[in-house]
């Protein structure tokens, strides 16, 4: 389920690999929050790369070769060497292209906290969303409350800062903001409004969307919703 205008949206990142010293390829799918993290990091650093859209129901030989263990996207291929796991890839990007736009906090304790919270997001958000999405009745209500409380916790962690990085946009902001493109989907399936539950978080997300690296990396939330609706129909019909 692909939107070709989105492929065009990312076409500005296509470059001629022959003339470049660094060859960077990103294996991804347009709706993946984890892939978006990597896109944002590369854009913040101004790194030219080739974007390759994967069909997760028909994974390419390249993906299976580059990520034989998890067989997942995103995979960053830097001069032929693969990197997997979005949080690890973003830290790698920060390490390699260290001359511009530092993504990790400069203080070690703040860095550890950022890693802790990205780990929290990874452990909690997507799993709880899937359980909420696939459940009905009382179980759905419980999952929904659990889901909202995760975002309330993340909002509390932000407190009154402009970004999670303080006055600087950084690793934890990158870790969370891609989920903003899924808010409409979450809200519609969960029957709640993120703005009502977590107004500060929504304000933070909109602030992040002012950054070109973020706005060019996230798809439109309605397009995401249509994709999820189609996916659910397909899953339900395959039962």
């Amino acid at each position, binding site marked *: 389920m692909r939107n070709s205008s989105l492929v065009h949206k990312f076409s500005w990142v296509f470059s001629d690999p022959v003339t470049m010293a660094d060859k960077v390829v990103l294996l991804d799918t347009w709706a993946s929050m984890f892939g978006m993290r990597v896109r944002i990091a590369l854009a913040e650093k101004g790194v030219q790369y080739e974007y390759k859209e994967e069909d997760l129901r028909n994974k390419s030989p390249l993906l299976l070769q580059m990520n034989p263990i998890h067989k997942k996207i995103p995979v960053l291929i830097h001069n032929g060497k693969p990197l997997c796991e979005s949080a690890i890839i973003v830290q*790698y990007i920060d390490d390699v292209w260290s001359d511009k736009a530092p993504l990790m906090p400069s203080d070690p304790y703040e860095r*550890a906290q950022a890693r*802790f919270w990205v*780990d929290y997001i990874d452990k909690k958000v997507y799993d709880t969303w899937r359980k909420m999405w696939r459940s009905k009745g009382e179980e759905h209500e419980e999952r929904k409350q659990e889901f909202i409380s995760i975002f309330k916790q993340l909002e509390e962690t932000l407190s009154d800062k402009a970004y999670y990085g303080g006055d600087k946009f950084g690793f934890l902001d990158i870790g969370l903001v891609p989920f903003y493109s899924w808010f409409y989907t979450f809200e519609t399936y969960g029957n709640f409004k993120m703005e009502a539950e977590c107004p500060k978080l929504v304000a933070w997300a909109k602030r992040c969307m002012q950054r070109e690296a973020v706005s060019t990396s996230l798809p439109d939330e309605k397009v995401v919703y249509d994709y999820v609706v189609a996916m659910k129909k397909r899953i339900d019909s395959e039962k």
Partner: protein
Amino acid sequence: MAKDYGEVKLFGVVGSPFVRRVQIALELKGVKYTFIEEDLKNKSDLLLKYNPIHKKVPVLVHNGKPLAESLVIIEYIDEIWRNHPFLPQEPYDRALARFWSKFIDEKCLPPISKASFTACKEERDKGTEESLEALEFLENELKHKFFGGETIGIVDIAAGFIAFWLPAIEEAVGLKILTHEKFPKLSKWSEEYTNHVVVKENLPQRDKVVGFFKARYASIINASK
């Protein structure tokens, strides 16, 4: 002895592989710390204050500032105390070290648990198959004396569970996963790691660990009847 960068406290329990990871990290660097034993059935107010999110051990408190999650803590320790580095300098190797540490927690530990602490044969078989698959990847990754090269690194510290706790579980529940035949390199590494001069002083007593797992397994079997 490591440089003094202030007060370090470690909240934990002696039997936990995750707590021991952090303890081994501190000991390898020669960092002075106070170990505060927790009762997990009756968690202290201090622990709940320092780790309100997960309410688990280990928690490291450095100059009053708390940190949770063993791998996050180890990276922090590595950044403050620069002797005996646990992560490589080179960015790609760093990324690989992080990848394999995460792999151990996400792909090795869960199927080992699934295979061990169940009364259901199907679960045990499936868990065993997944564990063997995961350990095969680790076996192929081991190219030197340790995952960290000639010295212990973060992947070795993370894999301590496989070196010490897995054989104890196997004995307790009657499972065979980490065998010399299937995993010659990993088996040899296990011996090197658990006999390392610092590591061996910071592991729990084996018979206590086996006893703990035996009791846990027995209660699962009883519950299933």
